[in-house]
């Protein structure tokens, strides 16, 4: 860790830019950062894990796969079901990207699970925020602010996350149904007391995952009918990791975060729906400007997920007042703008 601290301190003094790298599994995400690589992958290992506390603390370079294996051995799991996008995926990188999987609408996001972080700011100072307890309102919630900040506020060195019991039973039910009807159905069911933990519409099929204790899952299954999907774990894995056929091909992949009930997007290309309607995937060669505009019209936002990065950047532009606030916050944590410059927005 001292090496990392020294590297940042030196870079700060020399005003030299650094791009942060963990396992390198998400190099393609966001905009290109400037500067030389600072490698966090060696800063790894689970620091503390007491299953009865429902909290796990690990260094940023710890592989997600290792964490998930250790949790599974204790019948627990990460609540936000993060995509890995590669075997080398780390906890730090996942939190910096703020990635969450299918369970997100029902049991929360990556930022929801974070209880505390240790970061290395742009001066090379080590800072500790939050802690290892679920309820904690001492000081501003800087832990959650670092989630999804793509390393621009500091290098995440360690994080404590809330973990949850693994459900005893699971079943996935499928229905052939069009996109519009599926979106309505997902939302209706989410308003009922059912053990729903995932709802997606991909390639003309609505898939619902029910999880919980065996009695609850059986009762819900009986109520909902539909076709039981064999090898459901593989299906959800392929949807999460973007290895399902829908995601294949060179056409740019867009992610739109939208109000969950909006009807299918009025945009050319193919669509898939995850997060119970709140996340839409679009494979489309439509110009970026039309996609951003369409997302804004329905009260959402868009990001180019995979594809050639446009000059203007991949993320949705922010309103002026919010952008000004971003710049001021960035300056507070990284006065010389050396950390992952340009990765989130081009001007910092």
């Amino acid at each position: 860790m001292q090496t990392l601290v020294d590297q940042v301190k030196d870079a700060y003094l020399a005003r030299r830019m650094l791009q942060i790298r963990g396992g390198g599994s998400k190099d393609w995400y966001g905009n290109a950062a400037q500067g030389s690589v600072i490698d966090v992958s060696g800063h790894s290992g689970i620091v503390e894990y007491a299953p009865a506390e429902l909290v796990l603390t690990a260094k940023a370079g710890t592989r997600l796969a290792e964490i998930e294996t250790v949790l599974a051995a204790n019948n627990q799991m990460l609540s936000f079901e993060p995509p890995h996008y590669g075997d080398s995926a780390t906890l730090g990188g996942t939190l910096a990207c703020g990635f969450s999987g299918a369970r997100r609408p029902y049991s929360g996001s990556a930022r929801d699970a974070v209880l505390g972080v240790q970061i290395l700011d742009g001066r090379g100072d080590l800072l500790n925020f939050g802690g290892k307890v679920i309820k904690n309102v001492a000081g501003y919630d800087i832990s959650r602010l670092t989630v999804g900040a793509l390393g621009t506020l500091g290098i995440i060195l360690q994080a404590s996350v809330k973990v949850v019991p693994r459900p005893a039973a699971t079943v996935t039910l499928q229905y052939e149904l069009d996109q519009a009807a599926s979106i309505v159905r997902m939302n209706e069911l989410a308003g009922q007391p059912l053990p729903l933990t995932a709802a997606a519409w991909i390639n003309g099929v609505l898939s619902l995952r029910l999880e919980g204790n065996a009695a609850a899952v059986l009762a819900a299954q009986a109520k909902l009918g539909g076709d039981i999907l064999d090898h459901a774990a593989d299906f959800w894995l392929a949807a999460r990791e973007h290895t399902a056929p829908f995601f294949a091909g060179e056409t740019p992949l867009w992610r739109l975060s939208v109000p969950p009930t909006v009807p299918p997007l009025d945009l050319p290309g193919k669509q898939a729906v995850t997060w119970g309607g709140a996340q839409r995937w679009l494979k489309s060669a439509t110009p970026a400007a039309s996609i951003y505009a369409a997302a804004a019209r329905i009260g959402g936002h868009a990001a180019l997920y995979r594809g050639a990065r446009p000059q203007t950047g991949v993320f949705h532009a922010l309103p002026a007042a919010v952008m000004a606030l971003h710049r001021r916050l960035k300056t507070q944590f990284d006065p010389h703008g050396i950390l992952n410059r340009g990765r989130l927005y081009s001007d910092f």
Partner: protein
Amino acid sequence: MIADSVIRDLRALLPSAAVLTADEDTAVYESDGLSAYRCRPGAVVLPETETQVIAILRLCHAAGVPVIARGSGTGLSGGALPREDSVLLGLAKLNKILHLDPLARSARVQPGVRNLAISGEAAAYGLYYAPDPSSQIACSIGGNVAENSGGVHCLKYGLTVHNVLGVRAVTIDGEILQLGGDCLDSPGYDLLALLHGSEGMLAVITEITVKLLPKPEHAQVILAAFDSVETAGAAVGAIIAGGILPAGLEMMDRPAIHAAEAFIHANYPLDAAAILLVEVDGTTEEMAEDLRCVHDILAANGATSARTAVDDTERLRFWAGRKNAFPAVGRLSPDYYCMDGTIPRRALPAVLYGIEVLSEEYGLRVANVFHAGDGNLHPLILYDANIPGELHKTEQLGARILELCVQYGGTITGEHGVGMEKIDQMCVQFRALELAAFHGIKAAFDPAGLLNPGKAVPTLQRCAELGAMHVHAGQLSHPHLPRF
């Protein structure tokens, strides 16, 4: 005091009844729920629209007058404590539920809407708003966001930050910020999370979009008794490690049990050293299976008795004892002081023992209620404000208890906020570097430091003068020395 010219300008902006300056009018606002701290504000303003809020903030910004936002005033840390030179911005009149979307399961509301009123409105659709601080009948949703309020169901359903989709807020210079909205995330930094628990120091919230959840079909509660707090604490760990995520999991120690029983007659076992209330919810089938599992775990982990409430009346009575624990303790003593630390669950026996030792040292009785599911401990210190010096002694004991929580890897506040009350203990929990980062956040939003100044984050100078010892979680400088 506030300059007459500022008062005149405020009166020009608002109806005459919405600007209060007379002593008898402003007295109502001199404290929040922490009534030991009082101060009359220079003026109280009661806007009814966001446009008025913006105008007030612009005016105060231009005049350099501090602004302290207040919802229902139920906060327990002095977060809404006024200053003589400040305008107190009461948001209680912004009390409309603007839109409820049953299909999207969200509601857009103004900040002065009462927490419980949201669930009231949502009930027609089988939905509710999950966070339930014990003041939920009165506390405002704006205040809940400002404090990131919890409640008794946080382990399963989360805190306020987990149940809010978006806020609209106004900065001190009158800029509107829309953070989040109807989606599950937003581009850029997570400023929505940052505003939660920011105690009115970053911006003034004018609208909130909350998430609504389907009401569980059923809920049931088990009352279990133990002959020591250690056994009860271990049983909590066993339930959680056993794969059950109870909707509520509460512990009370002997003094709290006796106080509650005398007041509510909840049928609590008076010979127990500790009781647990375990609530499970869900569909009929789900609940039955969880109840059976919890009973098995309790029996295997030393419960001297454990029984499920026979009907809804008894279930509500079991809960009434817990929910009225504060006033029940209040009957034993002229005054009581409620603390709010959080600790890792496994540290409970050690922390309770430490509190017992401190209680004897200070000669003040302490009863403990504990959100065992999430580690949030509420020691209630019994004192008599009419005895000279006793409040001071109580505050000292409270401070020592919070420091104890930090020593065991916990935090000085789980859900009540730092406010004015715990500002010195912030010096114990954080080093100068982190405190400087907090000041940096504040400066990014409010460079002139006019929103709720002096709360939540101590100046570095204050910490230096206090000579407070920073204790990093669990790492004591001389671990072999006994400290409680």
